């Protein structure tokens, strides 16, 4: 079997797996988020936190709870890093420097997992587990909570409340993320990943050089790193490191874990609004964009339109031989289509158009299928904007799922849409405008511009992957990307919750022959069109001077 055929089989098997789990897993998450019963573990947590679990919250209270939780999380993660030398299992490492600790705290709390540090040489085991791995769970749970709150906004009629943030947070963690991550970790261990508390081993290599290899609780962190679309690797090499991603099979499983929640949530959405076909439409939009992107990335990498790749038949530089070019490309597409940002290969070494695809995936706003929760709410915002523009063309004021899209709704939705492009473009402009920051680039010319553009795209969209090449652990980049991450995460969340609040308060308009049907292929096509055209129009000038200029020369 040729490499290309194997790569296609790899993709096809992933698609099949997604199709198989979509319905049962989506239904399971629906039951989790609509159940009125609390299990024992949850009741204990509520008592410890002093949460009145049966009290519903308005959007404002929901948002304040979420922000309070996130601020506290940032402080805790920052504190543990700064104090790690005084805490156990530090492996004798010094405290993390202030700007890196700040950047890392924000990075993990915002589900970005941008890493301005090298994991194995900076963090002790306790920091990895108590600070970073915990955030891998709860930051994903926060995203899911927001998505569920927005869906409730669509589903409810004349309601002043959106549910309870603490309940949504705890349930997402306890009933969804923990069990799957647990099983996932076991399977990954079976697949060859390590899971121990060993320290640093000094090893003499075959060539006689020395190498220090750090052991650690890798598999447990790896599972939630992918499942929670986090992406922060235990090791600097991330999922290209054999301890994090041992074989082609673990590679498959990791991609599966990355995609499983984002692709199943639309089913949950369909169930909650009482029309599963609406969920199918949303998942169709995500699936079509994702598949197109994966295939294009594969095509660009296998085509390998550059000097060295032409010699070896494909763009093999920067890719792990044990995965091969196609599976590496598929991993790269999956990790950027979701807000994961784990990397199985060096995106910097991709062909210009392959690299363009990874950037474009993120620029879509992480919606196809996007991060845990954030993918769904981002996609629903795009659906709202599509409904607004195209919905007018059926001769009615626009409505989605029976809710009118009026001035307030469109104000919130279009502000949401403004945030990330504004952050990406201003961040890139500031960096490129300063000779000092440009010095961080590894390459010159259009490729150097791509490195900077990629960094800000990744941070603002809470992806966290790095193009590599750019030296980012300088105070300026730590602060700048940190701001991008924090605003790129929480401004949209606040806007989404406000939108959910205003939708929940409405009483729905019944569907009729004059209503725009939002479940037909026609609508799916429209959302895809609006998504791609809006993103293309926003980023084309920047992309033209980066990857497109490089690719066309």
């Amino acid at each position, binding site marked *: 079997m040729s490499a290309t055929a194997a790569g296609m089989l790899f993709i096809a098997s992933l698609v099949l797996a997604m199709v198989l789990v979509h319905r049962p897993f989506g239904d399971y998450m629906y039951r989790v988020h609509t159940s009125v019963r609390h299990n024992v573990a949850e009741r204990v947590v509520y008592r410890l936190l002093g949460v009145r679990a049966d009290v519903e919250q308005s959007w404002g209270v929901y948002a304040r709870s979420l922000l309070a939780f996130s601020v506290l999380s940032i402080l805790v993660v920052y504190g543990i890093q700064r104090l790690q030398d005084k805490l156990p299992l530090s492996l004798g490492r010094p405290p993390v420097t202030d700007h890196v600790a700040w950047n890392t705290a924000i990075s993990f709390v915002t589900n970005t997992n941008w890493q301005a540090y090298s994991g194995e040489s900076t963090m002790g085991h306790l920091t990895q587990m108590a600070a970073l791995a915990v955030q891998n769970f709860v930051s994903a749970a926060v995203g899911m909570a927001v998505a569920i709150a927005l869906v409730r906004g669509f589903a409810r009629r004349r309601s002043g409340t959106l549910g309870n943030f603490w309940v949504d947070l705890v349930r997402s963690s306890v009933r969804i993320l923990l069990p799957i991550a647990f099983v996932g970790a076991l399977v990954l261990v079976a697949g060859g990943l390590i899971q121990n508390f060993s320290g640093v081993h000094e090893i003499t290599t075959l060539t006689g050089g020395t190498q220090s290899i750090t052991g650690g609780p890798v598999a447990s962190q790896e599972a939630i790193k992918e499942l929670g679309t986090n992406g922060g690797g235990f090791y600097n090499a991330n999922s290209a490191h054999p301890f994090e991603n041992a074989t082609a099979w673990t590679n498959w499983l990791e991609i599966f874990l990355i995609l499983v929640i984002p692709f199943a949530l639309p089913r949950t959405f369909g169930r909650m609004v009482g029309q599963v076909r609406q969920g199918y439409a949303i998942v169709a939009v995500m699936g079509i964009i994702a598949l197109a992107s994966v295939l294009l990335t594969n095509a660009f990498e296998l085509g390998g339109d550059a000097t060295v790749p032409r010699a070896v038949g494909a763009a093999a530089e920067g890719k792990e031989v044990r995965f091969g070019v196609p599976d590496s490309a598929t991993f790269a597409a999956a990790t950027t289509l979701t807000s994961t940002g784990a990397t199985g290969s060096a995106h910097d070494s991709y062909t210009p158009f392959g690299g363009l695809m990874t950037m474009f995936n993120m620029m879509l706003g992480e919606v196809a299928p996007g991060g845990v929760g954030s993918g769904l709410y981002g996609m629903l915002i795009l659906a709202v904007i599509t409904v607004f523009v195209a919905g*007018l*063309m059926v001769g009615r*004021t626009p409505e989605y799922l029976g809710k009118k899209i009026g*001035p307030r709704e469109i104000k919130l939705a279009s502000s949401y849409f403004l945030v990330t492009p504004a952050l990406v473009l201003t961040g890139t*402009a500031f960096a490129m405008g300063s000779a000092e920051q440009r010095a961080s680039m590894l390459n010159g010319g259009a490729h150097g511009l791509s490195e900077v553009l990629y960094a800000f795209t990744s941070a603002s969209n809470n992806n966290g992957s790095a193009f590599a090449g750019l030296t980012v652990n300088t105070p300026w980049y730590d602060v700048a990307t940190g701001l991008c991450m924090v605003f790129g995460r929480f401004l949209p969340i606040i806007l989404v919750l406000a939108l959910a609040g205003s939708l929940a308060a409405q009483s729905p308009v*019944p569907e009729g*022959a004059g209503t725009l049907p939002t479940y037909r292929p026609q609508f799916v096509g429209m959302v895809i069109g609006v998504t791609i055209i809006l993103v293309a*129009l926003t980023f*084309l000038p920047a992309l033209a001077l980066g990857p497109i200029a490089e690719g066309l020369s």
Partner: protein
Amino acid sequence: MSSPATGRVGGGLLDPGQLVRSLPDALKKLNPATLWRNPVMLIVEVGAVFTTVLAVLDPSFFAWAIVVWLWLTVVFANLAEAVAEGRGKAQAATLRAAKRDTTARRLKSPTATAEEDVVPAPELRPGDYVIVEAGEVIPGDGDVVEGIASVDESAITGESAPVIRESGGDRSAVTGGTKVLSDRIIVRITQKPGESFIDRMIALVEGANRQKTPNEIALNILLAALTIIFLIATVTMQPLAIYSKLVNPGVPDSPALNADGVTGVVLVSLLVCLIPTTIGALLSAIGIAGMDRLVQRNVLAMSGRAVEAAGDVSTLLLDKTGTITLGNREAAAFVPVDGVAEQQLAEAAQLASLADATPEGRSIVVYAKQAYGLRERQPGELAHAEWVPFTAQTRMSGVNLDGRQVRKGAATAVMKWVRDAGGHPTDEVGHLVDGISASGGTPLVVAEQGRVLGVIHLKDVVKAGMRERFDEMRRMGIRTVMITGDNPLTAKAIADEAGVDDFLAEATPEDKLALIRKEQEGGRLVAMTGDGTNDAPALAQSDVGVAMNTGTSAAKEAGNMVDLDSNPTKLIEIVEIGKQLLITRGALTTFSIANDIAKYFAIIPAMFAAVYPGLDALNVMRLTSPQSAILSAVIFNAVVIVALIPLALRGVRYRPSSASKLLSRNLYLYGLGGIIVPFIGIKLIDLLVQFLPGIG
């Protein structure tokens, strides 16, 4: 001036002369104090000022050409609005003519003999009584409290036939500025000075205090957001451009790009091309034109919000009489009893009805002639006839002729007459009568010489084409409900025949109100028409309440639209106009955004192909030079506004059909069309401008 019966929404044509006439107004609107209401165009104006300064400092033909076309873009946008307003102004002028200064004969008390003083009309206050005689102009809006008069209302309705206005009942409202043609009436003034119906009409058609509708506000927000995004995209491009120039030393400066980055003129050009200028320019014109299309159909909407709501209506309440049926019952069949020939019954029915001047009686004579070929005989030609005219007391009419006694009338009355004459009506007659009643018709019994001959079947006649209309409504997702005072049986028969979805029988004003509330409870928007004072609460409650101009002031006050023709069928057209307004907005927004793709393909290679020659591959239109590409895009952007003014004023063609079909059609036309048209347009303009000095 009645509306076209087909009701297809068309629109007034745009006279090119109108563009020229509106030019001064368009130039006046360049004032930023007015333009700030339209943020998209304000950005264009700021850009135009900025490039003008740049062109003065560093003049070149290219820079000046861009400056001129940027200014033209703003002027064209203003022109669209001015043209739309101009049409309203013409109408307002006609109205003003009606509002010439009149004097009023004010009475101390509401009797014709009371003392009177003459005051100028503007001094009248609500509650004043005035007397108006033949030839005088009614000085203000009010209700007739005494007398009856024929009034010429052509000043506001355009209808030259006079209408009757009388005290009491639902025909008591009079409008200031209309003229009494005969008799004398006493009117109680109901308006405050300066708030008369005509004043409001003038304000409405002029668009003077035009408020933005919710959907317009929402669309403006989206356009503002897009503008901000493109503003960010263009501004942040500059450091990237400077860097790109820096790392490619040896590339000569071009009019588009030098060491300081993209030149100001080109940067502004790119921004103006990207921001949604097309829809930004036409948005308010679309709104004004929507109101104007209503005015052309003699409907006055009190707010744009009502027009927008009309597009969203999902339940239509239609009065049976006058809207669905012609209003009068007509003979539809002669049903003889056993042993009587139909021809014989028809002849007797005709004879008995000759003295019945009511519409029902006339319809029997007409039916006998049409269906049985019986010539209509004039009462005078039967010399010995003794006529028994129809009265409300006897409830029958007939004739005694050469010993024959023929009667027709209400079943009970005629049966009694038969029995009094010694006859014995059979059970068969009772069955026939009941059968007709059960089918929703009205039975009239015909008898001669103490013997029942048969029964006349009177029916409510449904207007032609109503069923098709209602089928269309259903396809549009609108439920039609017929309101009638008839009993449920009759109501059901007519409802079935007309093809409405539902009916409300024996309806009282309270029932109507309750029905509206129930529909609204379920999230539906309700439209209705009404004219009586007792309709006022329902009119006020409904989302689109169309009051008939012939109705009472209370009704007109409660509704949010007034139909000057008093044609209840027009509700259907109003809904179509509302939909058309929204579709036009959506279509032009889609078109505007889709246009940007081609503009990128023109401008990006023009800016950067010098530093990265590979980017010339994006120049798919093979435009002559960077300057011609940028200028062509800017010219296209401006010209497309003018080209679309007629569409904005006329509205996108609308045919009632399902949402899905409508959407497909409009997506192909304005989405796909919006992507393709500018590629062709820009190329064509490029073929021309390449011959200009310093461009090609």
